[in-house]
């Protein structure tokens, strides 16, 4: 089948305006803002309905054309850049908020709903509810974030965002629509069980198992007030104990440890960013008092910042993309990882060494997930997009960090292809066999984001 015929078929499905193989569209979708090399894309398609997704998948399966689903395209690790060409399925036209269930506290939304859209919708119509979303631009999708085991708001208290998925609607590689979670049984998309939990098949699978078209995500009560209680940590080895003592209290809504050697006053310190919430100032004050005492007992100290910093730290979502402007070069990528709390001090030291080795200002963040059950540890590497050598340095630093993470017992998160290979090398053989078996059954033609998770 010629390219023109494929395009014509895709146009028949989604309409002429939403299927393209123009060089400029392919150029944009052949790269992401991270440090991955561009890779060729053959078609970009934007479906609007689940039926259109089904038709595209059936057609692609018939013609054995790879499909790569894309949400906000902000993983930075090249997960939505096809490895073997084919169709990029940009999901952002599927952007309906279908239901906000106030009683069971969930949002049922289409896969292309951005965090910006859900945040604005809740603020306007449901001010007592809040959604989990990452420290990422408002253009990211809620589904994309949850499906890569994202983390961010509310993760300290309630876990990673993948754990907040109640139910999914998925178009399987054969084009059939499958519902997983409670929506497979009930009209309420309120929980994953109590049936065999197949939601996990589609999380961190990077589109290799199917294309998620709807998601139900947990919502949480939103207290009236939110503040930040900043701590200064001098001795890195005190971090695990401090975190355990803080999370014993049930006070922190979110909890992060940031290290950056710029600006200069941050050098040599870890900054504890602890978010508290409450319904009155008295409540916040009394929580702050308790936290200050814990800081002191654990060799940390409370720090007050000028008001402008509070505005920065309390913005929702936080402007984390600022890191891309550190070098005035439009690029940054980070190795995010899931890391055991006890290994955080070592990870910080080793990531710092890697940064310095590659001439990059050390910048790391550790986000506490679920009271310390897990930590999302990230080492960030800014680069100048216009400087190929700088990009190569960042690539090497990322790869080395991936290795370091695995050596410490952590696991690289939303890993790019090379990172996936490192993970697979350490993977239990029977896990690999199970994964491969399931994948081959679901996708015998290997059309779903091929090149990823090649076990």
């Amino acid at each position, binding site marked *: 089948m010629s390219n023109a015929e494929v395009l014509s078929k895709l146009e028949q499905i989604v309409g002429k*305006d*939403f299927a*393209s193989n*123009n*060089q*400029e*569209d392919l*150029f*944009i*979708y052949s*790269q992401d*803002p991270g440090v991955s090399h*561009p890779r060729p894309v053959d078609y*970009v398609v*934007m479906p609007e309905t689940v039926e259109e997704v089904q038709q595209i998948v059936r057609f692609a399966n018939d013609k054995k054309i790879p499909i790569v689903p894309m949400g*906000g*395209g*902000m993983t930075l690790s090249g997960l939505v850049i096809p490895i073997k060409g084919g169709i990029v399925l*940009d999901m*952002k*036209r599927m952007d309906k908020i279908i239901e906000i269930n106030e009683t069971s506290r969930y949002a049922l939304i289409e896969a292309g709903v*951005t*965090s*910006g*859209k859900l*945040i*604005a*919708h809740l*603020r*306007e119509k449901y001010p007592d509810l809040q959604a989990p979303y990452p420290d990422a*631009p*408002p*253009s*990211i999708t809620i589904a994309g974030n949850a499906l890569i085991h994202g983390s961010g708001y509310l993760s300290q208290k309630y876990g990673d965002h993948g754990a907040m998925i109640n139910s999914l609607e998925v178009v399987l590689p054969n084009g059939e629509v499958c519902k997983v979670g409670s929506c497979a049984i009930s009209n309420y998309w309120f929980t994953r069980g109590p049936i065999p939990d197949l939601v996990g098949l589609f999380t961190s699978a990077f589109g290799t198992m199917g294309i998620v078209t709807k998601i139900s995500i947990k919502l949480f009560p939103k207290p009236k007030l939110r503040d930040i209680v900043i701590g200064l940590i001098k001795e890195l080895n005190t971090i695990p104990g401090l975190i355990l003592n803080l999370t014993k209290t049930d006070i922190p809504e979110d909890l992060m440890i940031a290290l950056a050697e710029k600006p200069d006053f941050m050098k040599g310190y870890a900054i504890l960013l602890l978010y508290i919430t409450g319904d009155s100032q008295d409540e916040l004050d009394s929580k702050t008092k308790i936290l200050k005492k814990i800081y002191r007992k654990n060799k940390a100290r409370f720090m007050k910042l000028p008001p402008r910093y509070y505005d920065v730290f309390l913005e929702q979502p936080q*402007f984390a*993309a*600022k890191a*891309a*402007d550190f070098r*005035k*070069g*439009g*690029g*940054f990528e980070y190795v995010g990882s899931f890391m055991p709390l006890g290994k955080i001090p070592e990870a910080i030291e080793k990531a710092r060494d890697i940064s310095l080795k590659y001439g990059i200002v050390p910048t790391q963040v550790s986000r506490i997930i679920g009271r310390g059950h897990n930590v999302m540890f990230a080492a960030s590497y800014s680069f*100048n*997009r*216009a400087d190929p050598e700088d990009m190569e340095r960042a690539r090497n630093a990322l790869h080395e960090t991936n290795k370091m993470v695995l050596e410490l017992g952590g696991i690289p998160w939303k890993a790019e292809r090379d990172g996936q290979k490192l993970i697979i090398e350490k993977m239990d053989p029977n896990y690999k066999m199970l994964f491969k078996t399931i994948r081959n059954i679901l996708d015998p033609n290997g059309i779903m984001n091929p090149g990823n998770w090649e076990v």
Partner: protein
Amino acid sequence: MTINVKQDWKDIVHRCFRCGYCKFTFEYSDFNCPSYKKHRFETYSTGGRMWLIYGIINGDLQWSQNLANVLYSCSTCGNCMENCRFDKFNDFLVDIIEAARAEAVKNGFCPEKQKALLERTTNTEMFNPYGEPNSDNEELKKKYNLPDKAEWVYFIGCTSNYRQKNLRDATLRFLKKINLDFTLIDEHCCTSPIIRTGQIEPVKEFMNYNIDKIKEVGATKVITSCAGCCRTLKVDFAKQGVNHDLEIYHTSELVKRFLDEGKIMFTSEFNKTVTYHDPCHIGRHMGLYEEPRDVYKQIPGIKFVEMGRNRENAWCCGAGGGVKIGYPDWAVEISKERLEEAKETGATILSSTCPFCRTNLSDANDKFNLGLEVIDLIEILDQLEIKVNE
């Protein structure tokens, strides 16, 4: 291949991270970029355009008509500049797009409709983008009994002079009513449409001509009823290196000043509900948000209401940047969204301070039968009785 001002822009174009803040309104409730909202491919976001332009600069992409069309489907409204979070980069987003358009022109990829606009403007019988015979404005001078020499020049602008004559005439009547010492010149296009579409070759000649004509009548001050002319005279002349010492006022600025100084006072009522559409050219491009609002609010009897998206956050009418001429059907669709937003306020009048906005909003109002009255601020003022304190 290099873009026209490669040396100026090559060090900053790649600063775009494509994070997407530029696509959203302040509170993220909607997309603010008309072309992204229509096309939805990332290509049509400002970030997409920045990456395409960088692709051209570094040789990864070659010019094509499709690529030029992506650049030309930006209404240059500047919403992206308000929402891009990278300081000292966000100020230049529209400039970069216009510079890239200039390079498209040099490489022979200016779309045909926009090209025709230049041909008409440089036609010595016309000197306007509408293809109308040039008016030297002598008849108007006679009709309104205007002097040959004056302190002020009313620079009518092509849209008011050839398409929105009601607005022009209302302005002339108003200026007479307030006893402003003004006259008209044999003006040529201010060059806004050709700058916005990257056709910059004849721009300086037009600018110098208009300055000479203004100075010939002894004027030191210029008043415009067109947001596009105002921006061009005040901002683009300097950008093009054409400096002048003229004071440039938009009508809303002049009226506000006269009200503040007590020179004029509105003495009759206008008992209607009005909402205001911020023209991009005097709003985001020049920061004139409060001046027109202050004038509306001083009109006795008026009920002034705001649309959800206003000031820096205002949705573009869709006429600017060559979109009206290049994509006329889509341009009115963009306006339709604005009119619907206006209706939600309960207003019966959607008012603006730009003849180009007025044209496009009116076209959409008629096409989609939306039932609003679309008029310029000056047309409202023209209906009022005004006491002039000498």
